[in-house]
């Protein structure tokens, strides 16, 4: 694998897509902001319901990050190309960011409507577990030495983590987790005029997610390149 002359498609595209994704993210965020402000006020919850337009998209972005980490883990173990590991790392870190935002906006919303910050609601509990899972992933990376070993260990954890996300969903239902969340959020339980800001929120947050993912991957690419230059200059 001679990566000094041929760059991997991941590194190439991450560097190339940074600016376009930033522009797209800015544009979508502007449209989203207008649409959130003009969205109708919920008759039952009042203004606070508008938290939905940022809370749920952040959850989508978090899941997106963790799924990418898992897929890249499989690809890394299969192909042993370090670019997959860099993308997996970036996706886990950006995923943790959005997962944290879900865990911050959720309690703020809860405080505004139910009057208390935290409830052990099923989805909230799953999200907390998810957060710990990927925090452990980042910790594993920082505790292991030597880059192929780190990459391999992290890939294994990322791969095992994905089925656990799914299992947790079943498990918490089973433990009789009290549900505060509506079940059919996606199936049109949104009131009239609420679909558009929600959709725009998803698109804007995903655009931001991908922009951060691309630039974070680029940082890892540069870091690997720097390491290589150091090694080359040392060997002279």
């Amino acid at each position: 694998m001679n990566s000094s002359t041929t760059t991997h498609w991941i590194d190439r595209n991450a560097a190339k897509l940074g600016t376009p994704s930033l522009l797209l993210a800015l544009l979508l965020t502007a449209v989203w902001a207008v649409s959130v402000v003009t969205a109708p006020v919920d008759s039952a919850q009042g203004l606070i319901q508008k938290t939905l337009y940022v809370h749920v998209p952040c959850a989508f972005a978090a899941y997106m990050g963790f799924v990418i980490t898992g897929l890249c883990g499989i690809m890394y173990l299969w192909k042993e190309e370090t670019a997959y590991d860099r993308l997996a790392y970036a996706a886990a870190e950006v995923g943790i960011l959005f997962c944290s935002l879900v865990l911050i906006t959720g309690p703020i919303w809860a405080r505004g409507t139910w009057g208390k910050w935290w409830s052990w609601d099923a989805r909230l509990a799953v999200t907390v577990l998810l957060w710990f899972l990927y925090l452990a992933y980042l910790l594993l990376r920082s505790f292991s030495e030597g880059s192929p070993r780190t990459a391999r260990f992290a890939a294994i954890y990322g791969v095992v983590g994905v089925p656990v996300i799914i299992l947790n969903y079943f498990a918490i239902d089973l433990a009789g987790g009290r549900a505060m969340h509506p079940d059919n959020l996606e199936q049109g339980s949104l009131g009239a005029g609420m679909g558009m800001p929600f959709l725009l929120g998803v698109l804007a947050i995903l655009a931001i997610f991908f922009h951060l993912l691309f630039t974070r991957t680029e940082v890892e690419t540069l870091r690997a390149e720097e390491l290589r230059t150091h090694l080359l200059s040392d060997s002279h």
Partner: protein
Amino acid sequence: MNYLIASYAVVLGSILLYKAYVAREKATLKRSLAGFKTASPQESKAG
């Protein structure tokens, strides 16, 4: 209303902070790499 503003502010603030952190890392690495590329030919001449 305050809670609503707080949640959007937290989200945008965190994203911008993270973006700034990533951009700074990127700039540092680019500078260091550029430094290497200009410094290494001189080093090899000296050696």
